[in-house]
């Protein structure tokens, strides 16, 4: 297909989520959401 879209977390939809339980990040991009991890 001319355009293929990867499966990604939609950031706009994550607004409804900021619990702060994720790790501090001296990185941001390679973090995982703690709530999503628990729900898996």
């Amino acid at each position, binding site marked *: 297909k001319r*355009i293929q879209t990867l499966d990604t977390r939609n950031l706009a939809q994550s607004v409804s989520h900021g619990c702060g339980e994720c790790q*501090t990040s001296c990185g941001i991009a390679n973090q995982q959401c703690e709530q999503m991890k628990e729900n898996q």
Partner: protein
Amino acid sequence: MVHQYKNNGYNIVLDANSGSVHVVDDVAYDIIALYEDHTSQEIVTAILEKYADHSDVTEEEVLGTLKDIEQLKEDGRLFSEDTYENLAWDFKNRATVIKALCLHIAHDCNLACKYCFAGKGEYCGDKALMSFEVGKRALDFLIENSGTRRNLEVDFFGGEPLMNFDVVKQLVAYAREQEKIHNKNFRFTLTTNGVLLSDEVIEFANKEMYNVVLSLDGRKETNDRLRVSRNGKGSYDMIVPRFQKMAELRHQEGYYVRGTYTHYNTDFAEDILHIADLGFKQVAMEPVVADPKEDYALKEEDLPVLLNQYDILAKEMLRRSRGGDGFTFFHYMIDLTGGPCIYKRISGCGVGTEYMAVTPWGDLYPCHQFVGNEKFKLGDVFNGIQNQELRDEFKLCNVYARKECHDCFAKMFCSGGCTANAYHSTGSLTGTYKLGCDLHRKRIECAIMLKVAEAMDHEESTV
């Protein structure tokens, strides 16, 4: 904001504000590039002219692709708007809790690495070891100020923290008692140069440490040029076997072998691959941040070479991964489906607000890279935060406070970058460290390319 780039044979389109990633063919790539500034008819004409010798590129095809783009736009996955700025200020107006402390358990070191930001581990001050009493008070301070946060993080840092190992053990035992009482979960990390990595330490760390950072710069000649003992002897031969033992006993998880590259090894991909060839599966490698006058400091003219190294590394990692011998590079880890929410992405690392460093005397600083600069002292663990004005200044350090970030495609992946690096390179907490930004953008591009390759490989294998 849409960022288009070509890497390793893939045409990649990143919709920065939604986090969506698209892989497209040449025609769609060109259409997307024209989409915002041209009419449909102009796009059809331009594409048909460019691809005149391609029989499959017809007006119907181009219009169909335009329709697909329109649908993605409607779905908020392409050309989406940045509607998050107000969230950043709202988030910062919330009551602030502290969820992580960096304990400077030792302001002393048994190595004398020439590029050390902590000045041989002493932070431009006196040598000192943190007492159990100060450390205990720091843990109590963290619990008291953590609100409803359950996960609390404590880094044992230095200097070389293993020079004060008995206190590390006592503090972990104390925290384990307290976490039951207060319904908290402590995650400890340890950063070490490996000189004192005995079997006892390895056993303890593998039981108690959530993550361990093992410092090694790569090839022997690279490492031993700058990571030297007090008498100038290289450290490679001494530490590598210890790190290998530790990594194996940790089942190759929950650690990083973490190096620093400098002007002396701008071919740093070779150092990363060397670390992987030593059997390490978790590797991190960071550019040195140094006074430009230092001989090892990275120069602006190094940049093209450095950017190319990240491409070389990504391609080699992909080759190894496909051959079943992959390894993880810290900056190429990116979780597209389970990554952090928008609040985390726009508010950054929590420096000076959620995260603080504690000196051996109990003084509080915004992070380990501000320790030693009295101007940035926030208070101490006995009397709490006394410089609220400074803390409020750090609360405003988010991606929207940095004007250079406004039009940067990587802003949702770096949150405005490292505040300490920005301060040390520009004198402003809300500045940006240009070289660091250039490198980070490249790393994000490579990380996404690897995700694209993984997705395409998976698709091919299931066809």
